[in-house]
């Protein structure tokens, strides 16, 4: 019953396990005339990449590393579906050049579950039924984690109005906002 729902919140945890990403120093090459070598540390694992500088972080994650959990909505910074954490801070990966993140620690939805257990924020999304189609969900969850950390650092309250304002960079086409806010408040307050 909960499988579709859980699938959205854990994003591609299953996908990541099921795909042929070479662990440790995986090297992915794109056929191109003009490429650059750099490293991305994704979900705690270093990847040596060789890509054209025009490849976005989003495309590198999805197309090169096969981490399909991070979604492409607008590809222009307008929807937040591509939100990931870079050195712990939420960003829109569609407007970031992968090469500009050389050496950075990137966390995607696939990196949140620990030892087969959902991250509390993922768990809260499942329990609060915080999605319908699930397309925005990986971005919502990464963004929520970034926000909770920001509010704590800035000494701001985790309340309904703040969450709505600070999560405005994540659109939900299905309009699941009330439950998204509820999930974030639940997980954020428990943290």
């Amino acid at each position, binding site marked *: 019953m909960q499988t579709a729902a859980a699938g959205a919140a854990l994003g591609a945890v299953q996908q990541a396990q099921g795909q042929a990403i070479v662990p440790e120093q995986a090297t992915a090459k794109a056929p191109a*005339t*003009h490429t*650059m070598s750099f490293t991305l540390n994704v979900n705690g694992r270093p990847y040596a990449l060789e890509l*054209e*500088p*025009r490849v*976005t972080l989003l495309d590198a994650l999805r197309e090169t590393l096969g981490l399909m959990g991070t979604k492409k909505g607008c*590809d*222009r*910074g307008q929807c*937040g579906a591509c*939100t990931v954490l870079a050195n712990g*801070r*939420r*960003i*829109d990966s569609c*407007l*970031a*050049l992968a*090469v*500009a993140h*050389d050496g950075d620690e990137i966390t995607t939805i696939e990196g949140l579950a620990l030892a087969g257990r959902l991250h509390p924020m993922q768990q809260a999304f499942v329990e609060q039924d915080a999605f319908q189609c699930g397309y925005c969900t990986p971005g919502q969850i990464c*963004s929520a984690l*970034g*926000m909770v950390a*920001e509010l704590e*650092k*800035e000494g701001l309250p985790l309340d309904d109005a703040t969450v*709505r*304002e*600070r*999560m*405005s*960079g*994540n659109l939900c086409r299905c309009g699941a906002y009330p439950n998204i806010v509820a999930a974030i408040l639940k997980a954020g307050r428990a943290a």
Partner: protein
Amino acid sequence: MRDFRYTRASDIDSAVRAGRSSNAKFVAGGTNLIDLMKGAVEQPEELIDVSRLPLDRIEPLVDGGLRIGAAVKNSDAAAHPLVRDRYPLLSQALLAGASAQLRNMASMGGNLLQRTRCHYFYDTAFKACNKRSPGSGCAALEGERRMHAILGASERCIAVHPSDMAVALAALDAVVRVRGAASERTLPAAEFHRLPGDTPERDTNLEHGELITAIELPASRFGANAHYLKIRDRASYAFALVSVAAALDMQDGRVRQARIALGGVAHKPWRARRSEEMLAGKSLDASALRAAAEAALLDAKPYPDNAFKVELAKRAIVRAVLVAGGAA
């Protein structure tokens, strides 16, 4: 997106040297430039990444002012204790812009140099855009002009500057510090952006290859009474239809000095100096406020689609000044 060469600048001198090449552009957060490159509005052959230059500090100046490095992220500037305490107007304006993710990427320098959101500029399917290709005309003149300028426009271009931050900086008399090949200079924030005139392809008075190194704020008496009011089509994550940066130096319930700048109305942040003068020495009563607001829009030349902005701007001025003064 067209392919390009990418170099990460290791120091300021080499960045400035590389930036001189005619087809090179600096990139910081990339949130505007990469977006425009995806749409083929900008097509640089070389990008010089300045985001890791040592321009990421916020430091108090001996005269009581504050220097914010050009590479400081919008979110970090907004959250900095000294900015929140001494320049709440700037903090509010930054937080009114874009989304939290974008503010984590966007730099102070890049924010100043973000380009207009005029649809005719943004969409290369429209051939006529004097800003994009000088001499081609202005599709907006005969088009959908709801978002466009009501002050200071020309028959060549009616675009508005979209930055919220820049409106606060203009009100606060900030100064932009820039490094060129030969020298360093400063430009007042209020004169950093240009009116379109006959050269709408030039957004600012920065020369090609000049690197913004910092934004400097003078010591301010406006910390206690400031308000950034942004009016937009949805409550958050949208560009301004009209915005007002209002800051007051108050004494015994009277305005000693006022600073008012408008966003969303012109090709640059619009300093309402006449209104500021009219408010000096006044208490915040309704008729004085309305008169000052009327004065700011005296020269407005709207189109039918954006005529609503005139009254909206007047009421926004009244509201922003009242809130700044603690009277609303």
